[in-house]
């Protein structure tokens, strides 16, 4: 893993728990074909989204992330997302994938955070 510093909603993520950071660009555009089959595109912008795959999380790390997720609704606001090495400084909405609790309830396995950019900045 590259030596990244990732901050989400003000929470610095310990790089030991971040397995991967995958970026996806989704174009906000319409592709149209004319009578002779010619393709053209009316384009507005590209929206980015990121998927953070997290390794085993201890109880505290999970609680921090869960609180972050809940804060979007309790505080009625999205989260800031910063990765300075990749020149990312934007606002995202966070979704959380299904996850496993270990039998002792103290570890969470396979958590995936899906971050969707609010506005096409990055």
């Amino acid at each position: 893993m590259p030596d990244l510093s990732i901050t989400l909603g003000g929470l610095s993520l310990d790089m030991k728990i971040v397995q991967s950071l995958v970026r996806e660009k989704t174009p906000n555009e319409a592709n149209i074909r004319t009578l002779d089959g010619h393709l053209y595109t009316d384009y507005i912008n590209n929206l980015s989204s990121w998927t953070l795959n997290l390794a085993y999380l201890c109880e505290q790390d999970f609680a921090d992330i869960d609180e972050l997720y809940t804060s979007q609704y309790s505080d009625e606001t999205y989260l800031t997302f910063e990765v300075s090495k990749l020149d990312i400084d934007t606002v995202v909405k966070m979704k959380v994938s299904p996850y496993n609790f270990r039998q002792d309830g103290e570890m969470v396995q396979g958590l995936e955070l899906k971050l969707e950019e609010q506005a096409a900045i990055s």
Partner: protein
Amino acid sequence: MQTVTQTFVNRANASMRPLSWRFLASFDKEYVSGTDFFTIGVSSIGSDDIIKGTGDVLQEWDKYVYEDYSERVISCEWSRQQDVPFSVALGMMDITLDNHDDFFTPGGNSVIAPNILPYRPVKFFSGFRAGNDSPYSGENIQQFVGLIEKMPEVSESSKTVTFHCIDFLSSLMDRPMDEALMYEDYRVDQIISELLESFGLVPAQFDMGTAFTVVDFFFADKGEKFGDIANKLVQADLGNLFMDENGIITYRNRQDFNDTPVYTFTNNNIIDLQTSKQDDLITVVEVKADARSVQPSQKIWESTEGIAVGPGLSVEVWADFSEPVTSADDPLPIAVATTSLYSANLQADGSGADYVEIDLVSTDLFSKSMKMTFNNGGLQNAYITGIQLFGTPAPSVRKVYARQESAQDDLDQFGERVYAVDNDFIQDDSTATSLALILLNLYGEFGIIQELQVKGSPALQLSDTVTVVITESSGGTRTDNYFISGLENNLSSGGFNQRLTLKKREQANYFTIGESEIGGGDLIAP
């Protein structure tokens, strides 16, 4: 077509078209700083100070401070349609905005909530930008300026609001005349100019081309709707009245157009094509009118009731006329009058002694009434026992009628497709006949309408001439020129979609002395 840069043209034709737009609104209707209303003795003629009418936004929509809500735009549809054979084209726009925070919810808690009301001025622009620029910072050209017509539709489920907007010309259609207006021998464009100025518009807000038709006597009564009057005037001239994208109310006669194509559509930029319809074909034209005509001087009003006037007092007497009048003689005492007269007596029924101390002080003549002020300079109670007014009325006395039909072959093929004209601004049978022949000449053929969905350009305008090249299944091509009679535009995440209604522009050849032959096909111009 609106003037744009070559860069704009290139982007409109490119394979990758980065879209741009702007939406401005003046919800609080605040004026630009420094704008003052015209004050006699202070403001200079020709200065920027504006004439304060009713404070109505119709007078100077460019003087308002507009806020930018471009980032809130989710989608926008705007359209203009020109009818045949004449047109008062009205523009409209529906714009949907992001309302996730209830910013545009009427009665809500946002700072502008109290001002989410009808009749707020708005502007919309559309265009293209450089790929990396913000969608709001490209080369945008104005597409619509007008008013929010009614309260918005608020969707709580999608957290959006939709405003329905009409252009300023649309908002004028139902507006009643504040006063009766009367003109003799004015062209249609001159009359429309006067009507617009009566609403407080300034000449800079409209562009009237020269109409063909002169109305011998025009009369519009107080309370009549501008739309009803304008439709009749434009129909009499077979012209086009519309508001352009920049908010200028424009009139063009039926021959005022540029037939040089500004755009070419081929299978390379046409997405969908629908062929023509028969609805606009005309094989019979019937024209009727009750034209007004100014009559010779005659008695136009009479009063026989006794009107009391005390010594040293004045009284106002109003005469209401059944028809508009262009002139009325001031009444003179019956002993000396030759036309309008009045008589006075010591008794209300006129059985007493004649009384000569009542004088006419002043008169004010209006289009359908006259105010007379009489004064009793004597020492006795007296009565105005009779008043007769003579003047020149303009009743609807000239019955106009003309009926023209297509050739029998066309009647046999298409049947009687009647276009009826009932328009009192058509002044005589000759004009009516010429109008009927023009309509048959222009609209007597089938198959002149096309509807295209195109990879278009926001720069296109109504009446633009375009070339359409269709590649047929046989491999050949068919090329025709049309004019744009309808524009429907849509901007959303689905792109910039444009639907054009195209019609063939037929031209009537008018009789020209020294060139045309007697009995030839050239028409007498009305």
